[in-house]
């Protein structure tokens, strides 16, 4: 699952991950994330940090508070410089700064998904 308030990023990530053979659920509104995660049980969440209304770290905290999603691997992606510490404090599994390198990102996704499947 991918959540970013920027459509361009959503499209790009969908394109790349589908190419790698993953199914993707794009979501532009951070308010819907918890509900969709609950319903669809994604293997991994790519989460933007700086989003209107509900920020990525708030979404993350909600997920971490819920026993069902506490272990969900979440990669936080942000263009903000404080991003890393905010993300890690909120319980992110990994952090990627924007602009990112697609190959590296895909590797991180692979590692985390394979890790959970093992």
């Amino acid at each position, binding site marked *: 699952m991918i959540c970013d308030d*920027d459509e*361009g*990023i959503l499209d*790009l990530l969908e394109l790349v991950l589908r190419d790698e053979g993953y199914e993707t659920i794009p979501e532009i509104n951070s308010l819907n994330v918890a509900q969709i995660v609950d319903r669809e049980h994604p293997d991994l969440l790519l989460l933007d940090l700086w989003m209107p209304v509900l920020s990525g770290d708030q979404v993350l905290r909600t997920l971490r508070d819920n026993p069902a999603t506490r272990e969900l691997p979440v990669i936080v992606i942000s*263009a*903000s410089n*404080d991003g890393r510490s905010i993300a890690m404090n909120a319980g992110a599994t990994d952090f990627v700064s924007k*602009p990112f390198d697609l190959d590296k990102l895909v590797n991180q996704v692979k590692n985390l998904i394979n890790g959970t499947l093992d």
Partner: protein
Amino acid sequence: MDSLNKGEFKFSNDTYKQDFELLTKALDASLSGIIITDNQQPDNPIIYCNRAFEQITGYKRSEIIGHNCRFLQQEDRDQPVRSKMREAIENGSDLVVDIRNYRKDGTLFWNELYMSPIRDSKGRVNYFIGVQNDITRRKKAEDELKANQVKMERRIEERTNNLRENEEYLSSIVQTVRESLVVLSRDLNVLSVNDHFIRTFKVSREETEGKKLYDLGNGQWNIPELKKLLEQILPTNNPVTDFEVTHDFPHIGRKLMLLNAHRIELEGQYKDRILIAIEDITDRRAIEQRKDDFLSIASHELKTPLTTIKGYVQIINRLTAHYSDEKLKSAVGKTSMYVERLNNLIGELLDVSRIQAGKIELHKEPFDFDQMVREAVEGFSQGSRSYQITISGQTNSNVNGDESHITQVVTNLLSNAVKYSPDHKTIHVHLSVVSDYVKLAVTDQGVGIPRDEQNKIFDRFYRVGDIQQRFPGMGIGLYICAEIIRNHYGTLWVESEPQKGSTFSFTLPMNKSEGGTDAR
């Protein structure tokens, strides 16, 4: 002398001559000049003078006897005291006057003259006795004293005027500055405040001056931070500058004040007075904050589409991997290079704002310094193929620091070297170990930097003189570099000569746990 009887001289016929001689000798031994004038004769001639009178006046007895006293005044006849003397002679009274007399050789002497009449049994004045003392020296001393006094008084007046002028001058400065000033006594009573203080804190002079600082305006100055400054910091750290106090003031609301405090240490009436200059920086700080926020948001917003562009360029790269069209490949390669450059520029803007706010975030981890430099040079060379960048030396050391930031510094120094060496295509990088520091030097043969500009180039937004026209740029790269190196406890400096080139060097402390001091 047996003629002395009950305090009076008695002359007997037996001893008359002897006694008279004794008295004459006594008169001659006197240091005061003594004369007797006969007032029964016309023009009161002198009928007796002693030896001292001869010595004082320089005249011989033969030149004195028979003359009126006035010969001593020579041509100086208009002295006011003379009328007093004439009066005393007419009235037959005593008189003491200071009169200017002249010796035989014409020199002036001040004569303190005591005149005393001698009356006969019927009360008629028959004789006058004149006792003269040469008081020239005393007079001179008195005159000098008087002159000095006058001079002194004039000087005091000048000084007083000067002081008054100074005071007025200083006070006009104090009243004009756009900063609030308070003068406190040793026990923290407000002695005076300037107009700006009155205006800023919306108080009156009456309710302020003469009051205890902490009691002012319902205790609005009873601020723990201020108390700490005045009672704990100032006594041992004088003066204190740029001390920030945030406080909710009754009339003007929550303000951020910047304080400079100075305790007078000079011995004297002002010792231990405390001067406090207060600047309201609430607005300034808010504007800075807004600027930082703006830069932060702007860079975030710019990075988002850039991320997408970078991603698609990567996808295009992948899609064209098996194409053999070199032009297309080169175009895509250049696109990705310039995307990277744009990204760096945005990053720099944000860095400046963060450094300003003191919020630079470093993720320090030990890394291989030589390898980092090699990679940075290699990466940079990709985009500047017309330049030859050589590396010499090695450190064989690890550095504990934020590798990406240090890489940024190396890249920035390289790009400056290239940018300012349009005609010389060689850049040299040298690595070395100095004491327990690693050192990197980037040398170019470019346009160089004039000596007086060399320190300023590390300032924010500073661009060297006419450089702006020929080499566009924001003037923030070196500022960021210097701050990054400083935050790693190293230094960044430049040695340069115009038209010969520049060498930018930095040092960083080696990772102690590595024990790399004897590497090389």
